[in-house]
């Protein structure tokens, strides 16, 4: 499968002076960086795909104004190309195959015609070249002394609808350019990584008469059935230590948020409203955030598990039907038009529990599935705009969104 890569820049709005969401760098003032391909490898298609991926990754780390011209140079040349003389940095790389058919990539970061960083990378399968590109971007970000972009190396798991009551579970890199179907041939939805190591995941199987929650260990291939519930059963969130889950379950037809202990296999009902309570998210040790329609429309609420106090968290948006939590921050999806149909806009918004500010993170189209990175530095989401679906990444501290068009299929749910 070919995946065509391009980058779009979407302006976002900033309403907040909150320290952690402050814009720390302006595009104009970023240093310039150009790439020079010095590859010995003869596969021109691979070379071009690698170049595009590397341009994308270097953009996403948001430290450079990246030149998008594809140019060649000798890897050991003492001088950068004339066209790149005015650049602050040049990233020169050489892709080559060794005797064992491994794909090797050597990289030099050059500043003022002096090499400031050299690194070598090796993979056995050229189909996963994008992970080398992500690793290079990660290392350059470290070299520049910036806050870690560990999330670049994390894997995304998502369910893709391929037909009526048919879906696939797919593991991908953060741009979804690498895709590996791990479960196919059933109706499986809402995959969720079981822990930080991303070596196991939960998902809901809808193949039987009742929804069933399953656990898959990707290292051993072991599949375990955890529990089933009439109506619906979804793993909404996994605690930091992986020992507790927030489930949306409806044993008597009534969707509520439940706390499930992985070790004791016991669960406890946390919400008791007679309408819809879903999408539970852990917020610290004693609090959960969830979506409820207790005011007649879906909105974001929190519940203190010690005092049982329920609090409305969001006062903006007609219909706020999903959310993701990291620390004190909540990103949520809001319907921003009152039309039931046509030109409906769903935008993502960020709030802090400590301030009254609301920051809109997207501007056009239908934006959904917001997912914080574990460190809260970035938000992954899906954008549908003018019959094109893309995966987006929001760099909160850099006030930038990047979009990577999706090739096929409809994303049902994803986790990062």
């Amino acid at each position, binding site marked *: 499968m070919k995946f065509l890569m391009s980058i779009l820049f979407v302006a976002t709005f900033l309403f907040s002076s909150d320290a952690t969401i402050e814009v720390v760098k302006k595009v104009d003032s970023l240093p310039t960086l150009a790439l020079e391909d010095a590859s010995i490898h003869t596969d021109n298609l691979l070379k071009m795909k690698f170049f595009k991926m590397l341009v994308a990754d270097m953009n996403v780390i948001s430290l450079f104004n990246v030149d998008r011209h594809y140019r060649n140079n000798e890897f050991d040349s003492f001088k950068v190309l004339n066209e790149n003389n005015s650049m602050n940095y040049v990233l020169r790389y050489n892709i080559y195959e060794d005797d064992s058919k491994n794909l090797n990539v050597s990289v030099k970061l050059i500043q003022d015609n002096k090499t400031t960083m050299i690194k070598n990378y090796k993979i056995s399968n050229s189909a996963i070249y994008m992970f080398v590109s992500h690793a290079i971007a990660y290392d350059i970000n470290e070299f520049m002394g910036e806050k870690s972009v560990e999330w670049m190396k994390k894997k995304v798991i998502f369910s893709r609808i391929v037909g009526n009551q048919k879906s696939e579970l797919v593991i991908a890199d953060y741009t979804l350019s690498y895709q590996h179907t791990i479960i196919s041939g059933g109706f499986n939805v809402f995959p969720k990584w079981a822990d930080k190591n991303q*070596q196991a995941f939960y998902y809901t199987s809808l*193949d039987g008469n009742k929804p069933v929650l399953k656990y898959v260990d990707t290292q051993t291939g072991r599949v375990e059935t955890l529990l089933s519930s009439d109506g619906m059963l979804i793993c909404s969130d996994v605690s930091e230590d992986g020992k507790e889950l927030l489930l949306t379950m409806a044993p008597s037809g009534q969707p509520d948020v439940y706390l499930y202990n992985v070790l004791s296999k016991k669960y406890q009902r946390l919400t008791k409203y007679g309408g819809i309570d879903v999408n539970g998210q852990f917020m610290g040790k004693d609090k959960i955030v969830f979506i409820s329609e207790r005011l007649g429309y879906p909105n974001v609420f929190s519940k203190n598990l010690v005092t049982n106090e329920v609090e409305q968290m969001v006062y903006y948006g007609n*219909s706020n039907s999903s959310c993701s939590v990291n620390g004190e921050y909540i990103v949520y999806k809001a319907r921003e038009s009152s039309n039931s149909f046509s030109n409906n806009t769903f935008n993502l918004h960020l709030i802090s529990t400590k301030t009254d500010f609301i920051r809109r993170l997207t501007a056009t189209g239908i934006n959904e599935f917001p997912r914080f990175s574990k460190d809260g530095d970035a938000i992954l989401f899906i954008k549908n705009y003018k019959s094109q679906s893309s995966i987006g990444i929001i760099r909160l501290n850099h006030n930038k969104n990047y979009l990577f068009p999706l090739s096929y299929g409809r994303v049902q749910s994803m986790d990062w």
Partner: protein
Amino acid sequence: MKKLMLSSAVVALLVLSGCSSKDVAVDETANSKAQEVQEVAPVQTETLTATESNVMQENATNSSDSNELNMANAEKEMLSIYFDFDKFQIRPDMKEKVSTDAAVAKGAASAFVIKLEGNCDEWGSDEYNFALGLKRAESVKKALVAEGVDANRITMVSYGESNPTCSDKTQECWSKNRRVDFKLLP
């Protein structure tokens, strides 16, 4: 049937983890943890209901053949119930259909379990939408029970927006997808 394509995934994941020595160390700890859990947790197969139904088909006698035919015929008589945008209350114009369904449930379908499948339009593809589909199924269940159908015969499931009957981007099409379907089970 499901196919787990784990072998190649494991290979891919191991290759990926080869990029850094830290990741390899993490692999090992996770593996040993996973094995500990494996000893404790009961492992169930995922094909139980499919196997059960296969056995029934293998042992099928003439009477169960006709039973299946009766079930299929009764299912055809049951009418889908449609809903308004973002709502799970039964519309006045749907009440007659619910009564028809209740009559079939108590008559031709009286020997079968009724599975209510809640569905939504494409406006929303998250947990809330699944819950909306479920609440629609629950509304139909309550209405059927009110008309005398035994609650213990009814199961519910929601498919959210994942099971559309119509995929055009029109109001008419969306309204067809906001529905509860009936399936009969032996």
